[in-house]
């Protein structure tokens, strides 16, 4: 067939296959230029990023060092470790597979770089390898940051030899390739079978993942017996036995880690070899699939426009008019525009509803999960844990969706500058939109949790006040920093959120949560731990405050939280307003 085509065609030069060398040259130059640009122009940014990584690594290390020391108290530690590592690597495996799949799906099928490279004499499998290398470097960096403190802490606790520590990086490197190749292959096949439906695919993947996570958490919480007793532990391990299936790569990783640490080098190396060989095989299959269907998949994914006609409706405007009567009409129109964009982007609201929905389901059934909720100290602890989880989830959402809004708006600055409204009104509009949505979702969740836990109305009011502070503070931080550290070059909100500004926003948000929640949670915990004589585990942290003393200290704590909240609103909004007024587009 090829010969006949050649004979039909012009007497053209036979196209020389450039191989992967030009793409390697490209990656090398891009890396060098990016690093030298960062070093020359953004040393502060680089320093902050390195510092954040160090703090994260050290935090993980300390946490797991303590955790492994705790596990050492139990008998059958080897078995517990195998379960722990199997679960840990299974979680990483799924996360890596899904994240690489999403990156390949978006990058290869919808990226402008792919569209350009596909018109060049680049083989489809080389293009795939190029994009895969990018995603694996990102994923590998994440795994190293997440996995290395865990493995180093384990090695120190079990007093592993030097060879174990040397094997950590190659072990993690071999591991990254396997889920990455499987995820990338799945992305190409899904793209081929379900072209032009990226949001549907994303929503389906999210629902499936949430189902399995929810089921796992449900099973773990329903483990019979008193928590942390040997019987309870035995039952829990029985429920987690699926993670030790001998065909799961996570089990091979667990065995490799445990055997290498125990000095059984030959067995450990055999497991590492198994992982590397499977990763290589998965990679070969992925490149074969890419060579076979990548161009066809790209073609199928391109070109379709949504033909869905949308009937003009002023329902959203009317809701916004009712919800924000104190705002000027132009600001209300901006809020309505943001609300409409949010509703029409399933990637945003599906994640929002899935995570908040799962939390709502858990909070609504919280009494079924634990038998310790009659104890005041546990009830208080669980109520603050629920509040913290809700706030953490909100922090990730404001970082992911609210922070990029000002950057995305800046791309339309030519239009916004001509509208009859001040720049500051745009910022206040974003803040009002974010805070309203956050207050509605988080206060509802908190009420469900507190009512299910049977807290008294005074504490519910304290929690509700604290949650309002958190919602307003997190919204202001994201909107203010979003205006101060915009990225007008990037059109993808996830990349804006993953950049320096987004990362700093997340770090600041987490610090704010730590201080604001801690100021209220600490007096509550000290008081309730003092009330509960059975709470032996908390003996070192008890007080004998009277109710009046507790109320006074709680008022001080809540006052501190409110003060921090006011600062978290005022300072970022001021910074954002100044930046926006001085901004030249």
């Amino acid at each position, binding site marked *: 067939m090829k010969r006949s*085509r*050649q004979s*039909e*065609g*012009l007497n*053209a*030069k*036979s*196209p*020389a*296959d*450039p191989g992967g*060398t*030009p793409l390697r*040259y*490209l990656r090398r*130059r*891009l890396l060098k*230029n*990016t690093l030298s*640009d960062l070093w020359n122009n953004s040393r502060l940014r680089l320093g902050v990023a390195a510092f954040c990584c160090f703090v994260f690594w050290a935090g993980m290390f300390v946490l797991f060092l303590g955790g492994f020391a705790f596990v050492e108290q139990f008998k059958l530690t080897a078995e517990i470790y195998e379960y722990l590592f199997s679960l840990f690597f299974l979680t990483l495996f799924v996360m890596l597979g899904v994240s690489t799949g999403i990156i390949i799906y978006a990058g290869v099928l919808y990226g*402008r*770089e792919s*569209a*350009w490279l*596909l*018109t*060049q*004499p*680049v*083989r489809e499998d080389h293009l795939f390898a190029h994009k895969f290398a990018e995603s694996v470097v990102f994923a590998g960096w994440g795994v190293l940051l997440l996995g290395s403190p865990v493995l180093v802490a384990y090695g120190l606790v079990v007093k592993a030899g030097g060879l174990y520590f040397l094997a950590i990086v190659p072990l993690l490197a071999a591991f990254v390739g396997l889920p990455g190749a499987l995820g990338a292959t799945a992305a190409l096949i899904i793209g081929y079978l379900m072209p032009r439906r990226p949001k549907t695919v994303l929503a389906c993947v999210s629902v499936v993942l949430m189902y399995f996570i929810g089921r796992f958490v449900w099973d773990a919480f329903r483990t019979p017996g008193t928590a942390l007793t040997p019987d309870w532990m035995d039952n829990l391990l029985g429920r987690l036995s699926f993670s030790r299936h001998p065909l799961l790569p996570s089990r091979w990783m667990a065995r490799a880690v445990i055997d290498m640490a125990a000095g059984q080098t030959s067995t450990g190396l055999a497991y590492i070899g198994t992982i590397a060989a499977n990763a290589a095989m998965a990679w070969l299959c992925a490149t074969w699939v890419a060579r076979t269907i990548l*161009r*066809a998949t*790209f*073609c*199928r994914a*391109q*070109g*379709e*426009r949504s*033909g869905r006609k949308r009937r003009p409706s002023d329902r959203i405007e009317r809701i916004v008019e009712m919800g924000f009567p104190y705002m000027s009409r132009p600001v209300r129109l901006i809020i309505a525009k943001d609300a409409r964009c949010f509703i029409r982007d399933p990637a945003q609201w599906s994640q929002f509803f899935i995570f908040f929905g799962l939390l709502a389901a858990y909070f609504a059934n919280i009494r079924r999960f634990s038998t310790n909720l009659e104890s005041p100290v546990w009830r208080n602890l669980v109520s603050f844990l629920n509040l913290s989880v809700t706030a953490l989830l909100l922090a990730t959402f404001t970082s992911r969706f609210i922070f990029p809004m000002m950057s995305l708006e800046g791309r339309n600055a030519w239009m916004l500058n001509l509208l009859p409204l001040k720049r500051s009104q745009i910022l206040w509009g974003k803040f009002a939109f974010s805070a309203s949505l956050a207050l509605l979702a988080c206060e509802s969740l908190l009420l469900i949790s507190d009512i299910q836990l049977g807290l008294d109305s005074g504490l519910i009011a304290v929690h509700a006040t604290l949650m309002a502070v958190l919602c307003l503070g997190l919204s202001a931080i994201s909107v203010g920093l979003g205006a101060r550290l915009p990225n007008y*070059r990037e059109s993808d909100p996830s990349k804006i959120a993953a950049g320096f500004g987004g990362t700093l926003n997340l770090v600041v948000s987490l610090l704010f949560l730590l201080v604001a929640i801690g100021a209220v949670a600490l007096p509550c915990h000290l008081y309730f731990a003092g009330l509960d004589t059975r709470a032996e585990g908390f003996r070192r942290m008890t007080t004998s405050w009277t109710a009046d003393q507790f109320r006074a200290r709680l008022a001080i704590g809540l006052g501190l939280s409110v003060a921090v909240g006011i600062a978290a609103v005022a300072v970022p909004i001021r910074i954002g307003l100044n930046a926006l007024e001085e901004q030249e587009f």
Partner: protein
Amino acid sequence: MTADDSASARRPGSAAEMIRFAGVTRRFGPKTAVDGLDLTVRAGELFAFLGPNGAGKTTSIKMLCGLLKPTSGTITLGGFPAGSAEARAMLAYVPDQPFLYDKLTGREFLSFVTRMYGMDADRAAARTHELVRMFEIEGFLDELCEGYSQGMKQRLVFASALVHEPKVLVVDEPFVGLDPRSARIVKRMFVEQARAGVAVLMSIHLLSIAEDLADRIGIIHKGRLIADGNLAGLRETLSHTGSLEDLFLQLTDGDPAADPEKAPETFEEQGPP
């Protein structure tokens, strides 16, 4: 530059067919973007592809470049199927929104492209030097592309597209963001490429440029090629004495597809003079 000293200077009559659309249809769900397109462009011919927004020009170009597959029909470049390695080796494509790597300098980008086409170092250096002079990009060639203006980007993209001496040049809206001087450079380049035997297909909205440069003009409307020929031929057939703009509006303002009296097939078969 006028039609006389550019278009008439080229005689593509018997040259090889470099671009061939044969009965090409592309559907997106229920919508037909390109409907039974038959079109050839020969070596040394400069073909201007005109049409209102959404008429099917970019879809046709993407199919030609192998970025979309036709629902039916075939497309070949120099006899090779569109999208094949052989077809891509002889193709240069400049999209309406050209792609550049922000963190590469212009020189590195050109070097990357020459490597992809497997050019040896001496030939690549000579060709790069020639194009750098032609497009007057020396002044900013060693800066990162992220700092370039739209016009600088366009000129670099044209240089990169021509660096491997393609036989087919496909451009989508080539004059967007170009200042008059850059536009003149690009216009001159089109004519030189056609004189050198390259088949040039440009999609364009600027009718005066099409009128000045093109050997042949094709007008596509609602996915169908409703006119194909040189300007004089089109005027004669339509008994039209006005400008290309008048002619274009006359053909596309109504709905020829809905009116058999104005059936576009009347003009389709006109070849080059």
